[in-house]
């Protein structure tokens, strides 16, 4: 009995998946709930090592157009107070006016304006990035990592995006030294088709 039910549900999942796989255009929400999404940053410490940190709380969605991927769009909203570099005093400092000034600027946002395909799986996504109240156009180097059915009846697609920002461009007043004027940001996300 149990076996039969399992088999039946496995077949129906496979059938639904088969229908989905043929057409993967659509709007995808980041898998925030189960945390298949990461925004990591790294910045040089004195020029001698990398400091890594992350933003634990962010959300977003993307629209993927399978026919013409350059019509795709993505939006991300980051809660700046969720910065986490595994050191309480440093995180407190990063949240202060010296860096992210999270009391006045609780959110950072990215809204894509154009997508330029480099090859099948890679693209440059340009958009408006707002951080600490300053909006600037930035470009993300994006790679599509994969997409397909998940084992629970959904359809997922994952990307990794990288960019580099100059702290001073966004009005961050603190001077960390010559080697630490830019920060690299890596965003890795999995979207679930809605």
């Amino acid at each position, binding site marked *: 009995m149990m076996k039969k039910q399992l088999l039946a549900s496995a077949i129906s999942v496979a059938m639904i998946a088969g229908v989905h796989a043929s057409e993967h255009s659509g709007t995808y929400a980041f898998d925030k709930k189960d945390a298949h999404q990461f925004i990591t940053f790294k910045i040089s410490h004195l020029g001698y090592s990398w400091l890594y940190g992350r933003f634990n709380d962010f959300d977003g969605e993307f629209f993927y157009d399978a026919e013409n991927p350059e019509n795709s769009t993505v939006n991300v909203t980051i809660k700046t107070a969720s910065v986490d570099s595994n*050191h*309480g*005093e440093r*995180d*407190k400092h990063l949240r202060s006016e010296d860096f992210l000034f999270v009391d006045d600027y609780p959110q950072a946002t990215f809204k894509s304006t154009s997508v330029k395909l480099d090859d099948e799986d890679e693209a440059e996504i340009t958009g408006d990035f707002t951080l600490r109240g300053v909006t600037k156009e930035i470009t993300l180097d994006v790679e599509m990592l994969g997409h397909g059915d998940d084992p629970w009846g959904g359809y997922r697609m994952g990307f990794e995006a990288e960019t580099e920002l100059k702290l001073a461009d966004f009005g961050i007043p*603190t001077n960390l*030294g010559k080697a630490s004027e830019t920060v690299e940001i890596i965003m890795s996300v999995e979207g679930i088709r809605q």
Partner: protein
Amino acid sequence: MQVRNSPTRFGVISIALHWIIAIAVFGLFGLGYYMVDLTYYDQWYRSAPHIHKSVGLLLLGTVILRLIWRLANAPPAPLSNHQRWEVVAAQGVHGLLYLLLIVAMVSGYLISTLDGSSIDVFNWFSVPSVTGPMRFLEEIAGMVHYWATWALVVLAGLHGLAAVKHHVIDKDNTLRRMLGF
């Protein structure tokens, strides 16, 4: 000079604790006020907070000792020329000063230890975190520390001015008594 307090005079231990704590409070406040504006490449960027935290934790121990000493050895009675309202106000301020001292030092300790880190006291011994990692509460601890320390120095300043007023205007023994005369 006597060691213990008598009904009319402070003993040397009470007097020493009072002035050590007074110097430490104003010193820590000044150091704290100065160090938060240091930038990354300042010589004192790391050593000033280290000294601030070390002295702060030693002060916490000192204040606890003082409270124990106070329980074991009651302070002398108020001077007879003091009005009833003066005695009540003075005692209220003393209580509030003790409370603010504890709040200021505990909140300061928490800023550094809410991520589970310990504090090294002058590379002499290490005080562990009692909370373990409880992230993202550092801001609250920081706000409490900021306001408690401001309230503490303002109130301690008033307490000092009141003593000077008794010395200069009332010409009584209030201040002299705490100097051991």
